[in-house]
């Protein structure tokens, strides 16, 4: 037990230190992103902690950490939702909606289709649910796209692309919400017998109610300490309630966060900053647990990786080609835009982890392959895109402040 405590404490200290500005400066100098510089080591740490000979993240510990994992998913849901500020979206130039649409729908459809075929080939039975979730993981694009384009194409383009990536994240989470409503996890015990579409309303209604509750709580808080306490409570309640009803905490909290950010509050920027402040350490701890839940030993998962990466990147490039035709004239050329939007968003990993915690009991083997595809795909895509971008010149992916 002492080993478990020390291991987890070390991980927490590392997660806090990994968010240090000095490390960010090194990342920038080396042209690395958070996924490669600290994300992969934390994933690997999770896998190592899981090994029986190390015995830190044992089955019991992982089960004990489930509430913390749900809390982390809820927090990331709030992060995603709070970026969905309608007032900011209103400032986008005309036809930007088309860019969002093609950059979400084309990768989603292509990846879902290609992965469905691959899953069929691997296991002769495939499910629409699994294909859709892999599609949902393909839609989100890393916010680094905007940083990469800021130098070559200017801050205006970067600002448009930043909003596009936010909406790509939202699209991925929305598809997960649909999957959770229409492909319910087994709930024979449940006292509620509702049609699938009703679950969609439950998800939305719960998100809206919790968003209002969070809003009233943070508005009535006196001082930072009470605000943080209220926020923690609201996230825990939202994530717990969603998990309890077998709805993804990521989805319910994203709805709550989106509502919260669009309601008037004079200290909304500080509130957003409070939420974002914990994003990186939480994300790293989250990757640690994801690493422990991940079974990278099945070869089928690694077969799925190239299918996922090629279909997703191909679809992003195709989407960029369409976007340049139908979108605002300020956009850069299709290849540059496509490459910039190719790296995966951390939200994709959150989506697959949320999915695996909800549906892990059933087709667990298939879900393990999907997890390998998404996590392995994120690393492979980033390495590939970094290499191509350096060879082509013009784009430089590095951690930095996003244009406002």
């Amino acid at each position, binding site marked *: 037990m002492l080993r478990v405590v020390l291991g987890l404490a070390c991980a927490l200290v590392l997660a806090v230190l990994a968010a240090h500005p000095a490390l960010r400066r090194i990342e920038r100098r080396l042209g690395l992103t958070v996924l490669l510089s600290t994300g992969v080591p934390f994933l690997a740490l999770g896998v190592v902690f899981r090994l029986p000979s190390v015995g830190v993240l044992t089955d019991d510990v992982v089960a004990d950490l489930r509430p913390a994992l749900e809390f982390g998913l809820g927090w990331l849901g709030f992060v995603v939702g709070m970026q969905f500020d309608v007032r900011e979206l209103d400032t986008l130039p005309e036809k930007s909606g088309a860019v969002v649409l093609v950059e979400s729908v084309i990768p989603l459809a292509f990846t879902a289709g290609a992965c469905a075929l691959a899953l069929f080939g691997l296991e002769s039975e495939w499910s629409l649910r699994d294909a859709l979730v892999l599609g949902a993981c393909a839609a989100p694009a890393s916010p680094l796209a905007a940083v990469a384009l800021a130098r070559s194409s200017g801050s205006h383009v970067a600002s448009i692309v930043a909003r596009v990536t936010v909406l790509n994240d939202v699209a991925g989470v929305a598809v997960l919400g649909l999957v959770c409503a229409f492909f319910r996890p087994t709930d024979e015990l449940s006292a509620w017998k509702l049609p699938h579409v009703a679950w969609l309303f439950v998800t939305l209604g719960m998100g809206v109610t919790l968003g209002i509750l969070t809003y009233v709580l943070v508005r009535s808080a006196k001082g930072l300490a009470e605000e943080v*306490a209220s926020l923690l409570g609201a996230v825990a309640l939202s994530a717990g309630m969603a998990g309890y009803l077998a709805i993804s905490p990521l989805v319910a909290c994203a709805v709550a966060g989106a509502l919260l950010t669009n309601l008037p509050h004079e200290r909304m920027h500080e509130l957003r900053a409070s939420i974002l402040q914990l994003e990186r350490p939480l994300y790293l701890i989250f990757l640690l647990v994801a690493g422990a839940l991940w079974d990278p030993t099945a070869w089928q998962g690694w077969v799925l990786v190239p299918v996922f990466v090629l279909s997703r990147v191909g679809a992003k490039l195709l989407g960029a080609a369409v976007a340049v035709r139908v979108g605002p004239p300020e956009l850069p050329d299709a290849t540059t835009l496509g490459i910039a939007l190719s790296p995966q968003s951390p939200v994709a990993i959150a989506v697959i982890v949320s999915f695996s915690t909800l549906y892990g009991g059933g087709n667990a083997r298939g879900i393990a392959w999907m997890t390998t595809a998404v996590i392995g795909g994120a690393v492979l895509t980033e390495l590939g895109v970094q290499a191509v971008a350096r060879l082509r010149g013009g784009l430089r992916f590095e951690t930095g402040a996003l244009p406002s």
Partner: protein
Amino acid sequence: MIRAAFLLAMVVMLVAAARSFLPQESSLVGSGATLAFGFVLLAALQSGTLFSGLRMPRLTGYLVCGFIAGPSITNLVDLKLVNGVAIGLIALSAGGELSFRRIRGRLLAILATGGGALIAAVVVVSVAVLAASPLLGFMGEMSWEQRAVVALTMGVVFSALSPTVTLALISETGAAGPISEMSLGIVVVGDLVIVVAFAAVNALASSTFGHEDAGGMTALLWHLFGSIGGGVLFALVLFVYLKLVNLRVPLFVFGMCFLCAEAGTRLNLDPLLVCLTAGLFLENLTDIQGDKLVHEIQPAAMPTFAVFFAVAGAGLHWDVFKLVAPAAVGLALVRAAALYAGGRLGMAASRVPPAERRWLHFALYSQSGVAIGLAVLLKDRFAGWGEPASACLLGGVMVNEMVGPLLFKTALARSGEAGRRAAQAVAH
């Protein structure tokens, strides 16, 4: 207040609606714990606001909220984590607030008042228990020697004070001044003495009742000096972190307190002593100002305190209290009278100014974590008499836990120290 009542009702209704999803008899795991944690935190915060509106301590609101929500929540929230971190944060804050430079002139008064109160409480409560032993069923068949040992053990446990409540109330009321500083000093030193005294009476009771006392004196010395050493190590880590990194301090301190609580318990160290030493070391031996650190960790401390006290309230079982109510109330009254008399004697001997004497003793009546922890230890260690003795003690703690904070908050307000911290900050 209306807003707090509305929010409390909303939280309760939402959780009730969610609970209807699964049949009542089904067990709640995983998400149930996250849901319960969110519920406890939000409900406690709103109850605190409601009680604050009624001019009562927020802390009483947290306790009452937990008490009403009942034992059903105690099985859902990971209490060990919350309790361990809360005790660590409270001890670190108490140490960080205790500047020897500031209290140098009052050290004698602190020792005399605390010493007088504790000696009186241990003696009077022990004698009272011994005198009442023919009426207490669980002591009926014991020899007088055994009764005396049990009475002394109960006297020591029931004399425990409460740094957690004292610090939480000083923080809540924004109090500053001689009464606040002396109160904190008395309860911190007093609880240290009680922890050591408990180890001694525990050894005595073990030998009297033929139990094996693993480790004996060596274990006690390791417990004390190991904890102090661990505290110095913790302080050094924190010092280096604050000097070199100084980012996300509440999160880092939270994690370190978790480590102290979990690893410390397994290494037979006292997390309270470890964190207290760390706070004292930082405040008194480094250039880091403890009160600034306390202010910085406030965002992490508030939710932890709310859950900690709500969970403590949920641990107070009405069913048990009903059975031991007369004994518990009697014990609480005897303890209060002894603390008052001993404390006043100590204050008179050390020439505490009359204006301070009037209010200082109100800091002594509250009880919480340490008393509960020691009472539970009794139950676990001594089969037979441990359980009924623990029930009597916990009943008394329940009375002190509900009444003590109310009295101390009133004393801080009446003495004029409440709110003085903000005024001092403005003046600076």
